[in-house]
């Protein structure tokens, strides 16, 4: 299986995640789509590390996983805080910071 297939799949997954962020309005689903994009990046990292025959890309993928976990924890904390304040869970209505 040549590496090209993995790279094409990774860019396809990234595009699907980006499309989801543009389409969906629920903050939870937007976080899920962010996960999709990060995982597509991870797949590309691991595929390139296999292509070079070097394990450092896999270490990078593990660090990306850690960063994704942090982002999820903070994002879900924000969503719970929004829910507690009885604010609408819809990114089109949360537009106070819009310039």
């Amino acid at each position: 299986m040549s590496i090209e297939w993995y790279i094409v799949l990774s860019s396809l997954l990234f595009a699907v995640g980006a499309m989801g962020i543009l389409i969906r309005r629920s903050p939870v689903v937007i976080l899920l789509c962010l996960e999709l994009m990060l995982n597509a990046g991870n797949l590309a990292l691991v595929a390139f590390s296999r292509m070079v025959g070097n394990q450092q890309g896999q270490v990078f993928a593990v660090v990306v996983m850690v960063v994704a976990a942090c982002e999820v924890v903070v994002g879900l904390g924000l969503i719970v805080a929004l829910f507690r304040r009885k604010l609408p869970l819809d990114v089109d209505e949360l537009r106070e910071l819009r310039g």
Partner: protein
Amino acid sequence: MEEVPFFIAALGALGGAIGVVAMRNPFYSVLALIVHLFSLAVLFLLLSSAFVAAAQVVVYAGAVMVLYVFVVAYVGSGEESAWNPIPGQRLLAPLLGIAIFTELAIAVLASSLLALGTDGPEVGAGFGDPAAIGKLLLEKFLVPFEASSILLLLAAVGAIVLASRRDGGTSELEPVPGGASGAGSPGTPRDSEPGDPVPGARPATSEGVSA
């Protein structure tokens, strides 16, 4: 015979990703993401990186997805309205997705990386197993490893501060009726706004602990 598991896993990953975007109920989106993550773990195994695959299953499908499921169950899986704030958004977004995909594919495949068309070099049995990755993490990448652990600690503290129960001046829309911790004065001068979570959170966390 590497093609069959690759295409099965690729179909699973792609179907899961499309399911995340297309499902109207956030709970089903979370379940679709779990399918996606397991398929990606299979792909990582095919790329002979066992440790990343195991971490994917344990960290993502085990821990992060449980967090998602709890939050979706807590917040309630309200379905989105079909109201379309930007005209043509649902039409333009897939076009932009296709544009991103074409761009990425051209950028990578048209590059002169000769090894892209090959299966990659022959690697030994120890490639990507936990021993090799752990040796790299603790010897060559010790500083990024420690930095990521500090980042995890900061994220945990930040999530507790953000999601802690706070009663004083919760929202200007509708005050929370009778908070659980019973802080006497709802109109405390320190109005905690969404913009500055840290100063407002100081008294709130102590209340949350005592409650």
